[in-house]
């Protein structure tokens, strides 16, 4: 089934990382929490070749030719699913998407049974998004191929954090501030921290790369114990923004705007909306990020989201494809028999 492609071994960088499999010693990618700093950097470095490829007119390689990748999405997604699909196809794999709406999950089949069923189709990698925290790990324990977490409940969304790190790295490089990692950088993550897997993965990823992270949310949307994880909690957005180098806004789900968590979208915008005026509290030239999709006029104003010199929101989307290509490449190396990865 597997094709060995020795003609173009992926050696984007050398010397910085342990050889072969030791550079990334996991079968699955379930969360940033499982990764060491050098493993995060390795994935970022590996993604650079795909950033280049994705900017060419012919964006194709046969690296994963003959491999089958299943995108099993038990929760609605447009952007992440599309990003994974494009990543798999550009690497030459056969990509199949499974949507919860069309699946037997709605007919009461258990997640384990679904996992066993998918596994029986002999995929070479499974990408999973699920609404329950820990669901990806549960499936990973039951299947024989690598599993990538594309978001599980409020737990983790590792490829989002990796693509954010890659976008940030590129933005800093463009400004001539390139460094080994994010040491000394102050990052504010603002929004529904309580329910956000993006916030958790980014917190762990940014910390691993040396940044200090401030979390900002109204009390009802701030989880307990974030200090114990090394983050600084804020309820005042202005205080959190003071001197910040990067402002990462989170999407506020519409169902949370209806009075149980916050009184209204209007009031949320009044306290936590990123306006140009508010952004001026941050460091000069502070970068603005958002994982999308944005609620313009709620958590972020259009004039901020569209600032060409400050907002890297579209770059985040671009880096998403490259990061997912890197993850699919690295995780399938063992099955492809790449030297040192068996």
């Amino acid at each position, binding site marked *: 089934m597997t094709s060995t492609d020795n003609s173009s071994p992926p050696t984007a960088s050398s010397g910085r990382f342990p050889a072969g499999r030791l550079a990334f010693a996991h079968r699955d990618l379930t969360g940033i929490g499982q990764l060491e700093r050098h493993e995060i950097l390795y994935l970022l470095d590996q993604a650079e070749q795909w950033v280049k490829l994705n900017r060419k007119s012919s964006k194709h390689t046969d690296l994963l030719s003959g491999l089958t990748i299943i995108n099993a999405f038990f929760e609605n997604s447009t952007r992440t699913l599309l990003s994974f699909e494009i990543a798999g196809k550009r690497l030459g794999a056969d990509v199949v998407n499974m949507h919860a709406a069309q699946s037997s999950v709605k007919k009461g089949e258990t*997640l384990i049974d679904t996992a066993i069923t998918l596994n029986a189709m002999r995929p070479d990698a499974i990408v999973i998004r699920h609404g329950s*925290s820990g669901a990806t*790990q549960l499936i990973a324990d039951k299947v024989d191929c690598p599993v990538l977490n594309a978001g599980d409940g409020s737990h983790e969304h590792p490829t989002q954090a990796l693509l954010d790190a890659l976008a940030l790295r590129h933005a800093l490089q463009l400004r001539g501030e390139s460094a080994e990692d994010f040491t000394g950088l102050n990052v504010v993550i603002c929004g529904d921290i309580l329910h956000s897997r993006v916030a958790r993965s980014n917190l762990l990823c940014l910390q691993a790369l040396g940044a200090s992270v401030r979390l900002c949310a109204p009390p009802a949307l701030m989880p307990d*114990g974030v200090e114990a994880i090394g983050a600084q909690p804020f309820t005042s957005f202005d205080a959190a923004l003071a001197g910040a180098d990067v402002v990462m806004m989170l999407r506020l789900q519409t169902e949370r705007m209806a009075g149980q968590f916050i009184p209204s979208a209007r009031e949320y915008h009044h306290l936590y909306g990123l306006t140009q005026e508010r952004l001026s509290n941050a460091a000069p030239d502070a970068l603005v990020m958002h994982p999308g999709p944005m609620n313009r006029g709620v958590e972020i104003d259009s004039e901020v989201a569209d600032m060409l010199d400050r907002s890297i929101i579209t770059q985040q989307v671009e880096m998403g494809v490259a990061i997912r290509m890197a993850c699919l490449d690295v995780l399938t190396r063992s099955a492809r028999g790449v030297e040192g990865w068996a």
Partner: protein
Amino acid sequence: MKQARPITITGGQLVTTGAMITGAVRMVDGLIAELGKDVAAQDGDTIVDVKGRIVAPGLVDLGVFSIDKPAFHFGGITRAALMPDQSPPLDYPSRVNYIAKSGKPDLWVHPLAAATRSLEGNELAEIALMREAGARGIATGRRWIANSGLMLRLLQYAAMLDLVVVTHAEDDALTGEAAATAGEMATRLGLPSAPAEAEALAIARDITLAEMAGARLHFRQVTTKAGFDLVRAAKSRGVSVTCGITPAHFMLSDLATAEFRTFARFSPSLRSEAERQAALAAIGDGTVDVIASGHDPRGAEDKRLPFADAEAGMAGAETLLAMTLTLVRDGVIDMARAFELLASNPARLLNVSAGRLEVGLEADIAVIDPDAPWIIDRRKMEATADNTPFDRQGAQGRVLKLVKGGIEVV
């Protein structure tokens, strides 16, 4: 089945109220006929020499969710009070009557009547009729009764009938669909969580109502320092309130939920290490009255799920005694106190004549080697399911022999 001939257990260390004595127990016609230092076997007795092992009352397990005889017998349990959370719930006299007879003769099941119809917390169930059908207490089930007016009327009714009310202490409005206690662990795992204070809120209200009603109130599980403080204070004022705990909450903290281990999903959910230490202190100072298994065997269909979707509970009957004996070895309590928590206090709350080694009581007796080492192994459990959070842990303390009403069952 009746006891055919008298049995005398000799050479044991007898666990009697307040003290351990070396001696013998003689059982005649299903009752304890004599016990003490000078008791000797008589002609025609079956003699069992236990060679210095512990002779204790059979365990009375207050608040189990499933009748699981092999597991109970393995764990030295001769009586179990069954929670009304059955399918269908124990909210109807004929169901209570059926359950009350279901385990006999070698296991006595004491049904706890559902406080409200279908355990929905809206309308009182036919408690007096269920009492006549064999209910030994009333329970609110897995949940708290949110309606304070209804809870007051329930407690007044229970006081009239002299039935204990066993309640679950968590304020529903705070817990909601939570699967974990708010804190670093729940935040790292991204689990829906509720503050531990939901327990103290519920306890404070229920103590106030019980005091007004003059009812006997038992919190099946108290797991937080604030909760123990409220119970301690109420007891010192003379309120008729008691509380229990299961080994999970004094052995484990929320760290056990790492990697989404659903065998560590409980209701109430596991607490922080500080709360666990408060639980040990409350067991040591006498605030805790009952240690129970909370036996709730759950198969893969309930446990092999994402953490928040999995059912709470553990198969605890087999490990109840061994886990309680760790408290004796650690000096938290002594051996006599251990059996007050495991047998005599629950029997007293249920108003059944058992739970103590005392002349005239039912001959429910466990012979125990408190030091016998064994490995808890979920693949070798007697229970109908293998959901123990203590899998592959070492334990000490085994039941060697179990007698129910003068008849040897193990």
